[in-house]
């Protein structure tokens, strides 16, 4: 039995009653990391010395203070594209191999204010470009349920670390499915909030109109607590929304009587494996038994989402990644004759293939003569995709489908053809394009591999998503299953 089998609220209670200390929690993390991370390879950088010092400091506080927040003393892992002051942040790219951030991301600052303890930085696909974490410039993270399989990506380190019990909570980022897809593959709970819900300040930008930071946890309640702390408007991010943050945990009533669920036929059709389809239909039965109703609907532009996404995300990436030029931070080539040559050599030596491919695609889509045909066209189709969601949400409370077409695939299975790898994200990408929130929760197993149920909500209605996810979780025990390592 691990301490991390308890919920956040239970651990908080145990701290209150002095049954455990913050040092116990932090020890538990590093003990587990020592046991299993050689196999799982989720962490790129550990923050051990500072974390233990912070634990000591918090334990002293604990001795005198009666009241402290829910996240007080809680160990957390941070995806390595979220900057942490004084703690190496690499985006799993050689081009940032030695980057020592000089400020904290807003989400990190809020976690620090809540007295959470940062355990370390988690592996990912380089610059969050990928669906398997195989594009990391440094190491191969493995799925704790089957070490021959990928953990998903790009937040593969975050999802694997939570699934393996190395940390009870982690932050990821999601541009086209990068929180939900690895959460599904690793059997944990991952939420992509509404675009603008969480500040992106200090998140190294991939595609600025799509990126969102979100929590990855073992259960829905913990997820809600974590979102509570990181949400809200931030003067440092002008795209963060000035919309009130509700009390998410109070939405977890267990009551979904009368809830109207839409199930897009496109999300259960071709490309989705029969086993995953069956798991989702079974989950809908559970929700029906709790008083919800569901109907089939259509999101007619779904099939265009993948092409739209790759044009838009790559275009934005080609602009955002222009800053990595060997001048102000990170790697610089030793073999440059002049400035232009230095830029070119630095970038070619520093970036991996997938990152180069997307920079190339984006540069092409934005280049003179092609802008209207590709970039602008994709922006227009994005409008149609967004309208699909608006139409469905006029009549329904949530949209439900699978998170991924299949469970976790084998390492190396999809690396040779970029389009095959991209197709893995067809069910998550439309959500980012529409800017709505979506969660993945465990809803079954196929041959011992977790299957994810995706619940999508209206803009800024994370509460309803959590309510449905929590009700489902109360009625099932998939979230209590743990991999054997």
């Amino acid at each position, binding site marked *: 039995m691990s301490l991390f089998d308890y919920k956040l609220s239970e651990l908080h209670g145990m701290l209150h009653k002095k049954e455990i200390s913050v040092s116990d929690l932090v020890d538990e993390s590093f003990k587990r990391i020592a046991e299993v991370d050689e196999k799982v390879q989720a962490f790129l950088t550990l923050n051990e010395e500072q974390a233990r010092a912070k634990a000591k400091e918090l334990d002293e506080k604990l001795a005198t203070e009666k009241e402290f927040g829910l996240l007080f003393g809680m160990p957390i892992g941070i995806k390595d594209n979220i900057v942490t002051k004084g703690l190496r942040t690499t985006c799993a790219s050689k081009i940032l191999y*030695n980057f*020592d951030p*000089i*400020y904290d991301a807003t989400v990190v600052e809020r976690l620090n204010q809540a007295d959470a303890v940062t355990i370390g930085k988690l592996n990912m696909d380089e610059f969050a470009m990928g669906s398997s974490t195989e594009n990391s410039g440094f190491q191969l993270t493995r799925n704790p349920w089957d070490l021959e399989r990928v953990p998903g990506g790009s937040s593969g380190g975050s999802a694997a670390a939570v699934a393996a019990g190395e940390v009870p909570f982690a932050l990821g980022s999601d541009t086209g499915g990068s929180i939900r897809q690895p959460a599904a593959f690793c059997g944990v709970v991952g939420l992509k909030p509404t*675009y*603008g819900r969480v500040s992106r300040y200090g998140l190294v930008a991939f595609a600025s*109109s799509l990126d969102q930071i979100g929590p990855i946890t073992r259960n829905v309640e913990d997820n809600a607590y974590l979102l509570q702390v990181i949400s809200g408007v931030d*003067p440092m991010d*002008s*795209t963060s*929304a000035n919309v009130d943050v509700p009390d998410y945990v109070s939405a977890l009533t267990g009551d979904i009587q009368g809830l109207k669920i839409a199930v897009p036929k496109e999300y259960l059709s071709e490309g989705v494996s029969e086993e995953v389809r069956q798991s989702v239909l079974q989950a809908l039965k559970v929700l029906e038994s709790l008083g919800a109703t569901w109907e089939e609907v259509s999101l007619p532009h779904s099939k*265009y989402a993948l*092409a*739209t996404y*790759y*044009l838009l995300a790559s275009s934005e990436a*080609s602009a955002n990644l*222009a800053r990595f*030029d*060997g*001048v*102000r*931070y*990170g*790697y*610089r080539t030793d073999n*440059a*004759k*002049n*400035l232009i*040559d230095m*830029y*070119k*050599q630095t*970038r*070619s030596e520093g*970036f991996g293939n997938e990152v*180069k491919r997307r*920079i*190339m*695609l984006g*540069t*092409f889509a934005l280049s003179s003569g092609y802008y209207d045909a*590709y970039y*602008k*066209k*994709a*922006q*227009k*189709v*994005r*409008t*149609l995709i*967004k309208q699909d969601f608006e139409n469905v949400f006029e009549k329904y409370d949530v949209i439900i489908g699978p998170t991924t077409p299949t469970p976790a695939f084998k390492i190396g299975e999809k690396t040779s053809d*970029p*389009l095959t790898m991209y197709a893995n994200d067809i069910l998550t990408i439309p959500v980012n*394009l*529409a*800017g709505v929130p979506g969660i993945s929760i465990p809803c079954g197993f196929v041959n011992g591999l977790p299957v994810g149920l995706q619940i999508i909500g209206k*803009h800024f209605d994370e509460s309803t998503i959590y309510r449905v996810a929590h009700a489902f979780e109360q009625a099932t025990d998939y979230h209590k299953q743990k991999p054997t390592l």
Partner: protein
Amino acid sequence: MSRISIEQVKHVAHLARLAITEEEAEMFAKQLDAIITFAEQLNELDTENVPPTSHVLNMKNVMREDVPTAGLPLEEVLKNAPDQQDGQFRVPAILE
């Protein structure tokens, strides 16, 4: 027929400030061609009267008072630089 030529790939690589080998140029030509061909399915849709979406929340410019605040300390800003001198970033010569 590939619709993206090796020459085009090299031009785009130059715009993106990437040095690529002949081999890479061929690989990218093939892969970009496949992705672009795939993306051209968007042409099935008539979007003549559809406005483009650049930002999903329909935000307007976000204004604030122009209040001066302290910037980051120079020492900190320079500490990650591969090369620096006299409080500035140092780069190779622009002209040989």
